[in-house]
């Protein structure tokens, strides 16, 4: 049945493209090659969790954490952990990701909760991504969970998993959940050509976290008291607003936070999209660099015939909006990491541009 539906979709595709060569049949063939795995084949081999793997109960030394404004990943929920070798600690960085010691591991589990699943099944873990700091270099590995939720396996070339979910607005959608290949990981996690974490900056970590029934604490304080973070200066620390919580920041601040986490990993001077001249970090103050009255550089049809990334007061004339609400691979931004549109994020950016003074 799976094949039939796949073929029907090909048929549909073929008919919508007139007078082109019509792709019809796809037979998977092997190139016969030995592949050296870049890491352990199974997630369980890492010994990151105790007991039943799917309960994601961290072993001693793994600390859960959250970000103020996370990347949108097709409405998946994320459970994050950080591990640092006993006795070592990260160093404070004001703007960049905290400087972690060799041997650190960042663990991010992508899952859909029961209420997000149309099937109403138990929590469905899709994948577990690891960032491992070996010597001076971060390495990314992705483990894809089996249907039985008993194990996750290293995925090199990427894969997709069909899943029916409810979006945040309650609408049902048939999602082709995409697991990135190992280079796709790097296409976001890349700074000056080197793999790097994105999330754990001080401004993202600066928030409360419910560690257990007895303890809710600020994450920075907690890391400090556990000896995991050194060199934190006295006084107020930078704090990113929570994009969808109006009590945490102005419209401008929240939109900028959303744009930073969803775009700035590429759109910064050290990122893969530096050729565009569009730089979207939270700290960016140059309006032109943010896209205001900035023409497209190499956007092709991504600009949709619009002249500027942002036209203040006119979201409908701003191709930034057009690109973040597109699902077409040749137009959409970010380029990878989502198959769905983040409706609420798009609404936020649209409102931000609407309110922007020329």
């Amino acid at each position, binding site marked *: 049945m799976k094949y039939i539906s796949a073929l*029907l979709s090909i048929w549909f*595709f073929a008919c919508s493209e007139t007078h082109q060569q019509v792709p019809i*049949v796809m*037979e998977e063939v092997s190139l016969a090659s030995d592949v050296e795995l870049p890491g352990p084949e199974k997630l369980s081999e890492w010994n990151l969790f105790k007991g039943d793997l799917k309960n994601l109960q961290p072993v001693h030394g793994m600390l859960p954490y959250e970000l103020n404004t996370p990347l949108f990943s097709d409405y998946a929920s994320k459970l994050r952990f950080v591990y640092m070798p006993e006795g070592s600690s990260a160093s404070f960085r004001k703007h960049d990701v905290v400087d972690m010691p060799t041997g650190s591991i960042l663990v991010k589990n992508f899952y859909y909760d029961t209420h997000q699943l149309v099937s109403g099944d138990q929590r469905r873990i899709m994948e577990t991504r690891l960032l491992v700091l070996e010597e001076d270099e971060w390495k990314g590995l992705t483990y894809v969970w089996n249907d039985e939720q008993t194990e996750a396996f290293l995925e090199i070339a990427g894969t997709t998993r069909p899943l029916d979910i409810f979006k945040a607005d309650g609408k049902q959608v048939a999602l082709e959940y995409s697991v990135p290949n*190992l280079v796709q990981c790097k296409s976001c996690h890349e700074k000056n050509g080197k793999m790097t974490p994105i999330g754990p900056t001080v401004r993202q970590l600066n928030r409360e976290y419910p560690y257990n029934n007895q303890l809710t604490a600020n994450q920075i304080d907690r890391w400090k008291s556990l000896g995991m973070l050194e060199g934190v200066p006295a006084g107020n620390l930078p704090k990113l607003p929570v994009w969808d919580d109006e009590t945490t920041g102005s419209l401008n601040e929240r939109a900028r936070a959303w744009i930073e986490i969803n775009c700035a990993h590429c759109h910064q001077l050290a990122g*893969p999209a530096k050729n565009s001249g569009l730089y979207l970090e939270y700290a960016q103050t140059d309006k032109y660099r943010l896209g205001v009255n900035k023409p497209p550089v190499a956007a*092709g049809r991504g*600009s949709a015939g619009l*002249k500027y990334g942002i036209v203040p007061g006119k979201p409908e004339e701003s191709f930034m909006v057009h690109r973040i609400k597109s699902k077409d691979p040749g137009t959409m931004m970010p*380029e990878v990491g989502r198959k769905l549109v983040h409706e609420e994020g798009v609404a936020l950016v649209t409102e931000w541009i609407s309110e922007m003074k020329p």
Partner: protein
Amino acid sequence: MKATYLFLGIILFIACGYPPGAPVAWKSIEKDLQRKMITTSDSAVIEIPEGNFMFTRALLLDGKKHVTLRGAGVDKTILSFAMQEEGAEGLRVSYSENIVLEDFTIQDAKGDNIKVTDTDGITFRRVKAEWTGEPKETNGAYAFYPVLSSNVVIEHCIAIGASDAGVYVGQSDSVVIRNNLVHHNVAGIESENSRWVEIYGNETYQNTGGILVFDLPGLTQSGHTTRVYSNKVYNNNYRNFAPEGNIVASVPPGTGLMLLATRNIEIFENEIVDNKTLGIGVASYDLIQAVGGGESVGASEVPEEQKADDYNAYYNNIYIHHNVIEDSHIFPTLKNDFGLLFLTKFPFSTPDVVMDGILEDPDTFNFCMTENGDATYANLDAGNDFEGLNTDIQKVDCLGQQIPPIFL
């Protein structure tokens, strides 16, 4: 299972009314090939066999040295991205050194066909990158797209159907673009914000514009020092199908060569024939801004913020010599402001070489053209409402500064 395929194949033909003929049997090597490209050791050759291969996500090569990706030949090994669901380009190479891509065809990526970024040493050899079918707005921007790279060679390649540029080199240094066949793109060959570029031995036809050398504001570097020679640039009269807003959308159909806001350029021994609007156009960024902004020519300037990074909006040091520049058309394009302007200013005798005359400093300005047969010339003086428009070629007939060969 095979019976099912056949059955559905038949339905497909009936349903689509697609002309009869052998269906293309696509195979998938996607996972295997991508796995190989990720796990390959440096100095490896990855061979792709002959066949038609369909991909659903971008193929990526990152952080490798001395790796060759080799097919069995153009139109023998075909990589199609017609069913692409993920990734903004077909094949992408990033942060690598000395990569060779050769002997295959790549088709129909949703974004660019081949993008190479942040790479030192990239050779494209005997690769065809195309969008099949009628050229259209929804085709990807670039067929070949090395950017932020150095030591780039593109040779014996074929580029067809790009909605921006067939062969595009951006923000790169030390570039050779030679002996390529480039047609049915908006821009045939475009060098943008690149330095030390040689463009020679290419054949470009049926594009909107044959060869462009542009320098745009707000990017990581400014371009200069480019030699364009021994190219055949003819019949570049195709309609402009670039999405609006992009810089090439302002290129008039019927443009042979166009220079924009760039410096230190030598153009020689080219055959520039039957491009109906312009043989060679030389423009400042002011002009493009004015036209693109829908304002009258000369009324607009580069917005203050775009002048960042020491951007220079004006061209200088241009030497055009020993070219054949001819056009048998009577009328320029009427689908572009420039075409209409030429028709008004030069009825029935569109000049072969046109510059807008908007200069940074007339005292240090250097523009020579000599030994170009019967080629005609015009300085529009567009910055002064065409008041000083003149067509006296003697004024610019001089020996300019030749650029020594960049690669020996």
